[in-house]
């Protein structure tokens, strides 16, 4: 209910002096520095927060390795208080495979965007999934190459306007979008596949549970786990930051539909 404008503004410059319980700090344990150079309204730090919170809550901070692809989110790797390996475009699942085979005790999570994973290195993630590597791959999907100006990727949905599909992506001219999570779910080596989003607080909570489950599957050695996270890119979409959550739900979210696509550990 909207309140009148004469409401008193609460002092939020310092913690209250009455007895309180801290329920959420500025940054979770594994994010060292909160400040970053990603754009206003970007969904990627929200997704990274969920992933890092899961690792911290499960006490895996000393044995976790993140393998980053190349995209805007790569800049964020400097903020993380865990080991980070930097891969070439699209190659993160292969580096993660090597790291995991050499050091099986590691909890290995890859972070890639849709341009990195689906355009530039789709075979890497598919083969890693088919081999049933005990790694967790995270796809941050915003449907555009955000870092290089907001042009179309392989996951851009039909009709979506991007810098090089100004009239909207057309199947005749640009082909159809690839649904990465659905593709991975079709492979027998994939034990857990889910698709979440970070466009509202409810979806952030659901996505965090998906990441939790994916890590659980990895720790159980049940096979390959994959979480696609739909993220906002208002800069790349050329829209206002406040409109981005609904735009995500209406365009990308309508095609790349959320939910758990596969969970063999639960089915067993």
């Amino acid at each position, binding site marked *: *209910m*909207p*309140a*009148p404008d004469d*409401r*008193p*503004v*609460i002092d*939020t*410059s*310092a*913690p*209250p002096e*009455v*007895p*309180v*319980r*801290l*329920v*959420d*700090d*500025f*940054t979770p344990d594994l*994010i060292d520095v*909160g*400040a*970053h150079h*990603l*754009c*206003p*309204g*970007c*969904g*990627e*730090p*929200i997704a990274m*927060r*969920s992933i890092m919170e899961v690792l911290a809550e499960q006490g895996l901070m000393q044995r976790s390795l993140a393998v980053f692809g190349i995209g805007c989110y790569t800049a964020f790797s400097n903020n993380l208080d865990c080991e980070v390996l930097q891969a070439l475009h699209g190659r993160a699942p292969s580096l993660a495979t090597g790291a995991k085979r050499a050091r099986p005790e590691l909890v290995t999570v890859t972070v890639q965007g849709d341009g990195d994973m689906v355009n530039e290195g789709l075979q890497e993630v598919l083969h890693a999934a088919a081999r049933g590597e005990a790694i967790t791959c995270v796809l941050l999907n915003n449907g555009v190459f955000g870092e290089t100006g907001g042009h179309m990727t392989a996951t851009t949905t039909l009709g979506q306007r991007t810098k090089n599909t100004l009239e909207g992506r057309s199947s005749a001219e640009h082909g159809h979008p690839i649904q990465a999570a659905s593709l991975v779910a079709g492979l027998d080596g994939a034990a857990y596949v889910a698709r979440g989003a*970070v466009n*509202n*607080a409810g979806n*952030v*909570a659901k996505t965090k549970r998906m990441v939790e489950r994916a890590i659980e599957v990895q720790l159980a050695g049940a096979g390959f786990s994959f979480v696609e996270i739909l993220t906002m890119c*208002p800069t790349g979409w050329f829209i206002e*930051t*406040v409109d*981005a*959550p609904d735009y995500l739900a209406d365009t990308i979210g309508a095609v790349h539909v959320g939910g758990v696509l596969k969970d063999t550990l639960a089915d067993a």
Partner: protein
Amino acid sequence: MSNQPSVTRGTLVIDVDACKGCELCIDACPPRVLEMTTHELNSRGYRYPVLFDGCTGCRACSQICPDFVFQVYKYETPMVREPSEE
């Protein structure tokens, strides 16, 4: 308007200068007690959120914020504010 006393179960510390003004927290807040400033800007030139009575400490703002602006507290005893006399 309502003459009910307002109950505030939680509160925030807002790192104003970390904010990039994306406004995601405004729509994310279930009790709708965050609002963007209209004229005041932070040191980076962005408008930023301010908090009113009625926070529940639900963490929706801190979980959606891309810039980690919020620290969320829950009061051990909820604060009750009687409606001011008109």
